[in-house]
């Protein structure tokens, strides 16, 4: 068994987490169903209101509950230059006053209706959600419709909430050396595209976020034609559409232009990021390769071939990396790989490994051995490709993951919300299945050869300082 970083044990842990927070990393990609035993496609109904807002309904009648989400097609990569953290800052401020609600009243109403709610921001989207008993759905819809264009911020709301997001940055990033490394790696992977800016923002720029920049951003992006409603649970499409017409349908807002962002130049040089931090007790190496997303940057089927590659190379205890580095060579305690193609623009393919424990004096040496072995596993894959058996097994795990994902209305709502805000259509989200099924061993090898190239990569190392040999005479009077 592998000890995940946050194993759930009934320990001296606090029972509650609630935060208006930042989405931590990628969600599970939408996993495919099998061609050989093709499960019926998830029933999804989609409508468009007259004001341009898209309505997506996923009926599931197992329990009288519903997940209600509003997704805005705007994220940190859409921020104006020099204003990093703005999209996430606005996400926080959306819980302040509107023309109809006092400061804090939004959360109070949701809670007093037995609802659990939160919001998250990523590079390409901002989402707000409530999980409630189905009879509270109309109320949730009127609350979200109200704040879509009805936010009434006061200048004094800004200063205190800005401290909160800076505190959030300290918690998530600055207090944690592994997070700092990640941030530096993304900044190096994307040279020109705004994915090089952390979602939460650079601290200096966060400190300068002001009332006017928030209001301008809100007015430009929070509008029905830029929003998608996703409702999953004990509802029908017709009923949700009627409610949506009465609430969201009454909201008016400007049209938004196309999402135009700086492109990413063709990569030409391998990069290395070495973070030395006195707090490090467990060194690690991580590598990111610039990769296509489902929407752009690759040949047809390439992103899906990389999904299968991620599973074969580093998806669990029987993967190539884990077997070689952890089981056979005993160089690492952990090794993994993954593909992240859920982006509006380019995605990334990642590899990670942590060396076995040892003395501080040998940290660099052990990490070097780990990296050499990772390189060797990748080189073999590029040279010899993958077997038909490996591909078949990876696909079957991905198919099962799809079936498991249907157990959760929250997961379903997120899969469709994330797909739609990263430029996919409902058909494309659903047919991912078919595209995965079409992946061949040759396609996996070809995708690996085109993407796992040194010049497309950033390699990050996390290390403590080189230990100073203690002077045993220190403090002894001569």
């Amino acid at each position, binding site marked *: 068994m592998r000890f995940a970083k946050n194993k759930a044990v009934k320990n001296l842990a606090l029972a509650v987490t609630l935060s208006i927070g930042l989405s931590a990393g990628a969600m599970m990609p939408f996993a495919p169903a099998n061609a050989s035993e093709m499960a019926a496609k998830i029933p999804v109904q989609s409508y468009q209101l007259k004001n341009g807002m898209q309505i997506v309904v996923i009926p599931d009648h197992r329990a009288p509950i519903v997940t209600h989400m509003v997704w805005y097609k705007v994220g940190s990569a859409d921020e104006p230059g020099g204003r990093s953290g703005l999209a996430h800052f606005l996400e926080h401020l959306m819980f302040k006053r509107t023309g109809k609600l006092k400061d804090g009243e939004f959360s109070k109403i949701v809670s007093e209706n037995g609802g659990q709610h939160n919001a998250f921001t990523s590079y390409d989207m901002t989402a707000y959600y409530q999980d409630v008993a189905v009879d509270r759905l109309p109320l949730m819809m009127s609350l979200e419709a109200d704040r879509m264009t009805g936010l009434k911020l006061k200048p004094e709301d800004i200063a205190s909430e800005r401290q909160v997001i800076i505190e959030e940055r300290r918690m998530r990033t600055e*207090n944690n050396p592994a997070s700092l490394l990640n941030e530096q790696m993304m900044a190096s992977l994307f040279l020109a595209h705004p994915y090089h800016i952390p979602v939460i923002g650079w601290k200096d720029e966060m400190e300068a976020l002001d009332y006017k920049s928030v209001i301008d951003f809100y007015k430009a992006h929070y509008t029905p034609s830029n929003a998608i409603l996703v409702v999953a649970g004990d509802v029908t499409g017709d009923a949700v559409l009627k409610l949506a017409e009465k609430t969201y349908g009454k909201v008016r807002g400007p049209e938004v232009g196309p999402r135009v962002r700086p492109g990413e130049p063709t990569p030409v040089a391998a990069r290395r990021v070495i973070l030395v931090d006195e707090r490090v007790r467990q060194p690690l190496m991580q590598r990111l390769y610039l990769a296509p997303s489902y929407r752009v940057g690759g040949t047809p089927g390439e992103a899906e071939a990389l999904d299968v590659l991620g599973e074969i190379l580093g998806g669990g205890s029987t993967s190539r990396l884990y077997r070689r580095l952890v089981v056979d060579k005993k160089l690492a305690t952990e090794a993994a790989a993954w593909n992240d193609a859920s982006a509006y623009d380019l995605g990334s393919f990642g590899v990670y490994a942590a060396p076995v424990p040892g003395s501080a004096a040998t940290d660099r040496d052990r990490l070097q051995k780990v990296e050499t072995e990772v390189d060797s596993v990748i080189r073999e894959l590029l040279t010899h490709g993958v077997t038909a058996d490996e591909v078949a097994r990876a696909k079957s795990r991905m198919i099962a993951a799809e079936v498991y994902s249907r157990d959760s209305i929250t997961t379903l709502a997120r899969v469709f919300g994330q797909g739609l805000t990263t430029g996919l259509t409902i058909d494309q989200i659903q047919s991912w299945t078919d595209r995965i099924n079409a992946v061949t061993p040759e396609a996996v090898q070809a995708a690996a050869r085109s993407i796992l190239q040194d010049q497309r990569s950033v390699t990050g190392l996390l290390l403590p300082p080189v230990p100073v040999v203690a002077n045993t005479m220190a403090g002894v009077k001569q």
Partner: protein
Amino acid sequence: MNVTVKHLAAGVVLTVLAFVAPARAMDIQVVPVQGVGQVWLVENHSLPIIAVDLAFKGAGAAQDPDGKVGLATFVSGMLDEGAGDLDSQAFQKRLSDLSISLSFSVGQDDFAGSMKTLTENREEAFRLLGLSINAPRFDAADIDRVRDQLIAAINESEQRPATVASREWAARAYPGHAYGRPVGGRLQTIPAITRADLAAFADAKFARGNLIIVVVGDIDAAEVSKLVAGAFAPLPEKPNLIPVPDMVAVPPAGILVIDRPIPQSNIVFGLPGIKRDDPEWFPASVMNYVLGGGGFASRLMDEVREKRGLAYSVRTGLSPQDHSGLLLGSVGTRNDSAKDSIDIIRRETAKMHDSGITAAELDGAKKYLTGSYPLAFDTSPNIAAQLLAIRLEGFATDYVEKRNGYIEAVTLEQTNASAKRLLDAEAISWLVVGRPTGISSTVK
């Protein structure tokens, strides 16, 4: 207090509806299984998925011998590393090829396991689950690998100030008691654990007598009976458990600072609390919701975050164990506002102790606690987790229906009495990990 939203576009009139039972017709069957006892089952045939949660009650980390702290956790990491005639890689490949997820976890009190499978692989899934518990191999190479992983996890947790704070807080609250030791072990104890220790733990602590199982999903009672009996019949009848003494926590009042070079101080604070079987459990739960358990509805969140922007998160929770109870809280705040945050939390605690909560707060807490209960039963694994927790506390199947009634019955007097009993602001034990300014340790 009445929340009215009649001014909202949809004109939804809010009335306090009685919330329905957690799941539409969630029928909990009690299935007798030959040699194993009762299994709780909730059938749900809408998806081809089966979720199983189990626990060996009383077989948690508190059973670890003193010099072998981390033993239970070590065992939990070994059970899926080979069993019966399948070595580690063969066992893992079988799980992975059949898309069966199997995992084990350990708390101070109990040893828990979770399994999830597609219906079509149920027979093999139950067989592998049984094998992992009855016949783990504990091969030398696997022991060495998992030992390294445990050491790496301890090293990695040193980089997490919140984890360091919780661990050190517990060590001081429970001197000489198992609850003061880290569940995951220490750098000094993990290397001392041998194959004989692992095998002895599994032999002694896993038995039919302390096994609790719940099953949710696409399976009927007859099949549950057959598969569970097959999987667990080989277990011995009774476990051999070391009695763990009851203990009231003795966290030292005052502040202890542990220096770490980080920009944000992570603070854990707490007081002796109550156990789950305390007659005041529900009043205390309501009180905690209003103090710091209710997210944005809580007073601490309002004072520390909303009004002043001192923290991203501040919260409190009741932490009940079999032999002790705590009221614990945590906050992360920049080093130069650690003192302010502590002062505000102390003041709010004293205020609630002296004046209690308002009728409107009581009403809001009840509405959330009753209304959100059905949300905990949204997926098969979540239903299984809820049922297992109910069984571990020794409640009957009707708890699910009765639970909201217990909340509804809480009075303002009971809640305020609970605040008086638990919230001694001067007795709070504060542990700060970071480089706070303006405060220093007042205790050792």
